[in-house]
């Protein structure tokens, strides 16, 4: 094979070392004095007998920090040299070598550049001229040791310390310039004597090192489906936690945002439906299980997502549905302290505004609904209508309440017109983040320390909800001896939050006020007629209504605190070259204390003295709860790498892992606070209550991995793990899970050569793995346990006694779920690595899923026990395509798109009757069964001439009701036997699986400005929302939203909704007419930043200063009905917010 590269590829380690040190040189600008001192003070001993120059140089590199830059073709490597030098300076040795080989050299600190006089004569036969050049990076810093060769020849040179080179070039020659970590470039030389070349960093980083299970791997050598993003994606974003920042970044890493409440967490999923009983990815931070929401996003160096079974297999039974590996930042050796400060502040408000109908619309609609349901006349007392209209038309001169003792002797009648959305949520709230980090290192050790503070303000108007997070992080690593490294990590996370309690606590569990920390405050029954306050300033409600504003303001708060301390110690021993032994031990103590104060308050009426306490928060109480969890993790693993005869590289890794988690929880509370405003347990006099629980789980396992690499072309990886989990019965606790993956770097083959300039790299991959899943419900799912109620809702002998209930059924044949996954994929780079593409197709079979077994008659009297009853197949793909380029004027721009998809279907489930209410073989997950509709009945005659619909609702159907299609033509709309054989008129009308999740990032950098925007969305999804806030009225207690006003009347025959009628549930069937297209595209983030020019900043001692403005969730495109957010699919939750941020990054 014709080797093109003229620099021999030294071992990978060296390449990285080069890169690191070069970067170090560039960034830190070590002073000349220090630089030269190494060469002067270091003494070396070299002895060689008949060895090549290359071999001697390697020896020197091994015992020192010197690095040689040379062209192997240039230096005379055939000469055998014998040399014996003891305690000499490098200069003495180099002089000796120069004498034997004729090379010349220059020493600059640890860098030694070799050149050969022979070079000058190469190719002199042709008409050549001397070309001088300088190679720099985009910031204008010189690149040392870059390769410059004449295209199509073996002739070339490397750059010196100033990035300069000189080369004899023939007419019309083209130079090929390359340097590790940068994109190679071809440059024409026509008519030039002096040439300046700017190399762009290779952002695709084929040489990038990717974090994998218990180790790292070169990206080029990966055989599994692993995606890694650097911590940069989280930088400068006004996000509350890590998960929000990862949404849409990695294809098929699906993040669901549940609500926008301060402190609310999100959930992760990798590659879609996992198991019918759920199960998500294993999230590891520095190899231990940590709550990703508690860590400081700014501390994160990289996030690796192990998607296929082969990559995840090393983690065994917890990794069946993928692994997310988060690595935190470390210091760098020989770097002076670098201090960086970042901060931002942002304003947030609901991303989607929802409007309830006004009082006139409400009164009109409720009357119609009442009448259509068989009622008559006004629903309310007629006087209400009269006053409500007056207030509606002239709120300034009328009252939203009136008092008529003949209707109620004590209470106001409500005739207001309240827009509750406006009353519950603020227009905006302010949040801020600060982060301070110091890192650096000496010759033998490194440090990284950071402090983070995050303060999120809620958007509740009458209550005070907030979330604060404090993070402190210290990573230290030290080479105690040449073969022993010790590292330690201390991470402390502390959060504080406060939310209105809503009256609900353990002391008050029956109090459903509908408002709580994370739930929606927009209750279904908030009548627009109720004002927020009475004219006398007291909150409205009067005991008959729940006024969320009053509860927010006066009902007491929940105060939560979390303490999360992580201590890790690790040893790395390198007894001899190639072998490393690692051991680490992590201890975690997690505590959560919650104090819930239920505060009683007066619910005022019209007549002073008749007010009572708002019943749901009376009596007042305090409940204090405490979680105390301990987690320990121990890993010991060894890795041995060996290359045999240059071409065969082996790496074998084996180890042991064990983890144990212990949970303890208890609460105690007491009613009857002496001081209503002071929730102290010792200052209460009423009933006491307490409860507790305690549990634990453990896993352990042996794992091994073997990597084999032939000429960097053929790559093979074998994983195996023998794993045990306390969650299974004793005789079935351990199992072995193997996996295999392989890759072929086609672009390294000779035949690829002609393609290589346009298509730089291509690797195809295949993997198969089998994993167990231990994430199966409770900690002891195989044991039937009795239910215990410590205070049942029944008084016997003067107290609410303890009661014990029967245990559920447990299947006798309870065992592991097995997850098998096949993955096929490729990675490719095109056009000088500017275009990168990656594709994976996968299919995952979840076998023996622990789910409710075959439906049994209800006479069983219990839920059908969980058993290994079903199989599921999930298949999908993910693509990512990215383009990065930099124009010669320095304009750098990029665009990246990720797209993923999955579908799942049941491949085994016992359902002999084919009931469609259950799983059946062939059922796609998310499948929506429903009726088809062909509009609304326009007349009673049309009802009479259409198929009968009385099975759906026994009442009389009329004009304005939903008309269904008689699919089976039996003259009647019905559901048959609800089975596949006879589904009546039901059919599959859609699927709620989110398909085609995508994320698009695009941005540019130019003259200090940077801009990036990030879109995220779902390409296809059907969703039947239903519920009060979709239909308007499902009972007389509801308050419809504006969107519900488009209902049928004889005047509005083209309406979307049927005529209002809370009795006719037949109108509210699942039907294609009301199925929503829940696909969306949301502008998740847009950022514009400016970095001040370095020359200015350096003068005031700042190495970098960047300021930016950023927006989150600013814009959404969707066809979904306006009253719903396509992301949460609910409008009864705390709304997702849009944010506008300003911030700065400062580095000293």
């Amino acid at each position: 094979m014709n080797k093109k590269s003229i620099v021999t590829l030294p071992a990978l380690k060296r390449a990285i070392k080069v890169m690191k040190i070069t970067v170090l040189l560039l960034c830190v600008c070590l002073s000349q004095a220090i630089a030269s001192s190494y060469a002067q003070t270091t003494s070396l001993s070299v002895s060689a007998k008949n060895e090549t120059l290359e071999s001697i140089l390697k020896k020197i590199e091994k015992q020192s920090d010197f690095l040689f830059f040379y062209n192997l073709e240039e230096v005379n490597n055939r000469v055998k040299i014998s040399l014996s030098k003891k305690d000499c300076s490098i200069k003495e040795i180099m002089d000796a070598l120069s004498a034997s080989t004729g090379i010349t050299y220059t020493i600059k600190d640890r860098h030694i550049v070799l050149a050969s006089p022979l070079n000058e004569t190469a190719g002199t036969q042709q008409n050549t001229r001397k070309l001088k050049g300088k190679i720099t990076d985009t910031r204008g810093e010189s690149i040392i040791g870059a390769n410059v060769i004449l295209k199509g020849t073996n002739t070339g040179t490397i750059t010196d310390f100033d990035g300069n080179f000189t080369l004899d070039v023939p007419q019309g020659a083209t130079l090929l310039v390359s340097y590790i970590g940068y994109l190679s470039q071809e440059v024409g030389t026509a008519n030039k004597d002096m040439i300046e070349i700017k190399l762009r960093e290779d952002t695709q980083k084929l040489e990038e090192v990717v974090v994998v299970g218990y180790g790292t791997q070169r990206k080029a050598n990966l055989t599994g489906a692993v995606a890694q993003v650097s911590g940069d994606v989280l930088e400068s974003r006004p996000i509350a936690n890590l998960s929000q920042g990862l949404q849409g970044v990695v294809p098929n890493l699906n993040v669901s945002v549940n609500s926008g409440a301060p402190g609310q967490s999100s959930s992760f999923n990798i590659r879609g439906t996992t198991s019918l009983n759920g199960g998500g990815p294993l999230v590891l931070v520095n190899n231990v299980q940590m709550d990703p929401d508690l860590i400081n996003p700014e501390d994160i160096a990289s996030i690796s997502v192990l998607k296929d079974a082969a990559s995840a297999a090393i983690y065994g039974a917890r990794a069946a549905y993928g692994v997310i590996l988060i690595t935190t930042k470390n210091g760098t050796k020989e770097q002076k302290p670098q201090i960086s400060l970042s901060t931002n502040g942002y304003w947030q408000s609901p991303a989607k505004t929802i409007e309830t109908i006004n009082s006139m619309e409400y009164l009109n609609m409720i009357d119609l609904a009442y009448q259509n349901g068989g009622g008559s006349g006004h629903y309310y007392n007629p006087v209400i209508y009269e006053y409500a209209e007056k207030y509606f038309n002239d709120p300034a001169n009328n009252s939203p309440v009136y008092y008529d003792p003949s209707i109620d002797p004590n209470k106001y009648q409500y005739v207001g017109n309240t827009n509750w959305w406006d009353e519950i949520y603020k227009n905006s709230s302010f949040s801020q983040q600060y982060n301070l980090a110091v890192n650096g290192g000496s010759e033998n050790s490194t440090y990284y320390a950071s402090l983070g503070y995050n303060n999120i303000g809620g958007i509740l108007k009458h209550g005070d909800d907030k979330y604060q997070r404090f993070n402190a992080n210290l990573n230290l690593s030290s080479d105690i001896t040449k073969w022993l490294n010790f590292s330690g990590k201390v991470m402390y996370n502390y959060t504080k939050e406060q939310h209105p309690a809503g009256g609900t606590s353990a002391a008050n569990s029956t109090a459903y006020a509908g408002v709580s920390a994370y739930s929606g405050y927009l209750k279904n029954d908030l009548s627009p007629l109720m004002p927020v306050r009475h004219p006398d300033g007291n909150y409205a409600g009067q005991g008959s209504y729940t006024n969320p504003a009053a509860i927010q303001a006066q009902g007491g708060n929940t105060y939560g605190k979390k303490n999360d301390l992580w201590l890790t110690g690790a040893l790395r021993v390198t007894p001899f070259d190639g072998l490393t032994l690692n051991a680490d031990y992590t201890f975690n103590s997690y505590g959560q204390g919650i104090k819930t104060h239920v505060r009683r308050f007066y619910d005022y009426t019209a007549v002073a003295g008749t007010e009572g306490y708002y019943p749901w928060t009376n009596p007042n109480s305090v409940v204090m709860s405490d979680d105390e969890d301990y987690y320990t993790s121990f890993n010991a693993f060894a890795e041995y790498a060996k290359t045999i005869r240059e071409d065969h590289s082996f790496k074998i890794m084996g180890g042991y892992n064990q983890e144990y988690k212990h949970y303890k929880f208890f609460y105690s509370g007491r009613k009857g606070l002496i001081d209503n405003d002071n929730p102290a347990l010792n200052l209460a006099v009423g009933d006491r209550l307490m409860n507790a629980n305690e549990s634990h789980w453990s896993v352990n396992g042996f794992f091994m991995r073997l990597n084999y690499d032939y000429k960097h072309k053929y790559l093979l990886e074998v994983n195996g793990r023998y794993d045990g989990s306390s969650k299974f019965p004793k005789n079935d606790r351990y199992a072995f899970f193997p996996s295999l993956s392989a890759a072929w770097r086609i672009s390294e083959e000779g035949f690829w050569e002609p393609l290589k300039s346009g298509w730089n790299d291509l690797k195809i991959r295949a993997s198969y793995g089998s994993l167990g899943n231990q994430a199966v419900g409770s900690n002891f799912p195989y044991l039937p346990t009795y239910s215990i109620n410590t205070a049942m809702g029944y008084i016997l002998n003067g107290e609410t006694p303890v009661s014990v209930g029967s245990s559920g059924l447990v299947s006798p044949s309870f065992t592991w779920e097995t997850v098998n996954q096949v993955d096929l994929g490729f990675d490719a780079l095109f056009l000088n690595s500017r275009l990168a593409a990656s594709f994976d197709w996968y299919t995952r079979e979840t076998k023996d899923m622990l789910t409710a077994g075959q439906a049994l008659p209800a006479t069983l009297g219990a839920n059908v026990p969980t058993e290994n009853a079903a199989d599921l197949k999930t298949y999908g793909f993910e693509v990512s395509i990215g383009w990065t380029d930099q124009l010669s004027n320095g304009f750098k721009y990029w665009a990246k798109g990720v797209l993923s998809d999955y579908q799942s279907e049941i491949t085994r489930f016992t359902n002999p009757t084919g009931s469609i209410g259950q799983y059946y073989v062939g059922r796609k997950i998310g499948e929506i069964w429903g009726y088809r509709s062909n509009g609304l009945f326009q007349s009673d005659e049309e009802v009479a001439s259409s198929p009968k619909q009385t099975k759906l609702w026994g009442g009389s159907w009329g004009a304005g009701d939903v008309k269904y299609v008689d699919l089976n033509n039996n003259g009647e709309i019905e559901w048959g036997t609800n089975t596949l054989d006879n589904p009546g008129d039901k059919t599959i009308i859609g699927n709620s699986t989110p398909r085609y999740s995508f994320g698009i990032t695009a941005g540019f950098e130019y003259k200090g400005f940077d801009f990036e925007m990030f879109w995220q969305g779902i390409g296809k999804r059907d969703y039947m929302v239903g519920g009060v806030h979709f239909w308007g009225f499902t009972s007389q207690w509801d308050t419809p939203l504006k969107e519900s006003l488009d209902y049928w009347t004889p005047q509005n025959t083209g309406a979307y909704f049927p005529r209002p009628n809370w009795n006719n549930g037949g109108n509210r069937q699942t039907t294609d007419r009301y199925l929503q297209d829940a696909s969306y595209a949301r502008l998740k983030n847009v950022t514009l930043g400016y970095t001040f020019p370095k020359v200015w900043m350096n003068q005031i001692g700042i190495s970098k200063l960047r300021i930016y403005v950023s927006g989150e969730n600013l814009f959404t495109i969707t066809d979904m009905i306006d009253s719903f957010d396509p992301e949460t699919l609910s409008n009864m939750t705390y709304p997702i917010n849009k944010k506008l941020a300003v911030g700065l990054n400062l580095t000293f």
Partner: protein
Amino acid sequence: MKLKNIILSGLFVSVLISCEGVTDISPKDSLTDASYWSKVEDLKLYANNLYTNLSAPGVDKDNVSDNCITTNYSSYLFNETTIPSTASEAGWTWGNIRNCNFFLTRYQKVQAAPSEVNPYVAEVRFFRALDYFGKIKQFGDVPWYDKDLQTADTDELYKPRDTRDFVLGKIIEDLEFAIQWLPDADKAEKGRLNKDAARTQLARVCLHEGTYKKYHALTGTPSANELIKKAADNALAVMQTGKYEIVKGSDAGSGQLPFEGYPLYYSNQFVQEDLTTNKECILPRIYKEGLLYHQTGRQAGSSGTGLSKDFIESFLCKDGNPIAVSPLYQGDNTLDKEITNRDPRLYQVVDNLHKPYLVMNGVRQTNPYANVDGSGAVTGYPCVKFKSPLQSQWEANKTTYDWFVYRYAEVLLIYAEAKAELNECTQQVLDQTINLLRDRVGMPHLTTSPVADPQAVDYGYTITPLLYEIRRERRIELITEGFRLDDIKRWKAGKLFENPKTFLGIVVTNEVIANYPAGVFGGASGRPVIEYQGKSYLRPYPGKSLSDAGRKWTATDKRYLSPLPTDEITLNSNLKQNPGW
């Protein structure tokens, strides 16, 4: 390199040590089969869990009957019920039976004297009987189980229904066991089951099943007469304990301040804080300030439901005669006239000017006119039987009154009815029973030959005036306590629903209109009225004709039994749908 060796061997040893038994752990805070069933206390704790199956407070228990009319019409009474598909929608639920059988197949592990163990076995068998009684009332034949089923018990799971008679026999066995082993009422813990509660329940079951058999002309063992006799015997056994009497509800206990001449001895009984010492109470469900509350105080009279015109007319006049006969009847031009000279229970259950709606600081308030709204009481007759005069009791989930699970009045009514059905109802029987109820409210005594009511409601067949009066007494005394629909079914009296007055409200006269704010009645937006037999009545369901076909019940109407869920019939082919559905 000594250090290196130490570290290496340390690593190696720690791996070996740590693997040992890491995953061999067991639950820390749970009870399992292995750890339970060792002592009598275990039995008690388990039995506790079943107590919530007893009758719970509520004001809606007669909502589906001829006594009450709801805001939204009952699809059952207009024959618009759709067949439910799932077991839970249909009420075909078996968790409770399993809970009982779970105990009954395990309690034997407790080694203790029968006198210690059996009282709890008796409680659990009582609860099993209670649940099965509900099932046979609802579905007729149902499968009988006496063990907690496992998934492999396919014979039992897929078996056809057992006959109603067979299951009834088992229910009687359970209850007789309970009567044998439960403690006497004065020896039981407060709130726990006692002998008399079990006797009352057995009497209720036997009267129900006996009369059901009789009026639906069913044969089989036990016979209707045997059952009715058993009902009488058990009711008599409770009466003969001498522990119970009909109590005049105290004003003090209820916080009530009655108007002169309008005592509230009947309705006060239902707003008492403590029934444990109340002699009319055979078993109370106890509520206590700060510990446990219910909601009837909030719901009573303001849930939309109103009493029916037919029910109001069923009250006798003060002379003991029906309104069609009595000269005391003032007609129904206004509510106030309508309640004048009537059985005093009428003014105690309907909101009117003679019963304080609210008593605060010694001041009585009444509502000037009864609510007629869809959100108040659709008939203009709000039922205030459980309404407290104290505002503190009205708040959401803040009612603290004890609830009658078994009330002595029912025992007396069972005895009277059973005796009448057996043709053994002497004046002595009436004096022991109905007349005690009448004494409380000051009504004249019933005799064995009362006046026949010329406007008697039509049961679809004729009965003796005595039995008619006993049924009338039962209807009034037990209003909204949840007996009426069961009674109509066992009497096979669906015909009653044909009477339009069972779904009409007050008569709307000019006097009535004048009493209410303008625009409440008639017109486009007022409450609709309809002419019936020469009078204008408030019409809660204008969409329904007075001769709606759904109100007509055939002799073998399907509605006497409920439908089984279609899903269950699909799952178990041995399960057949009830006739007509």
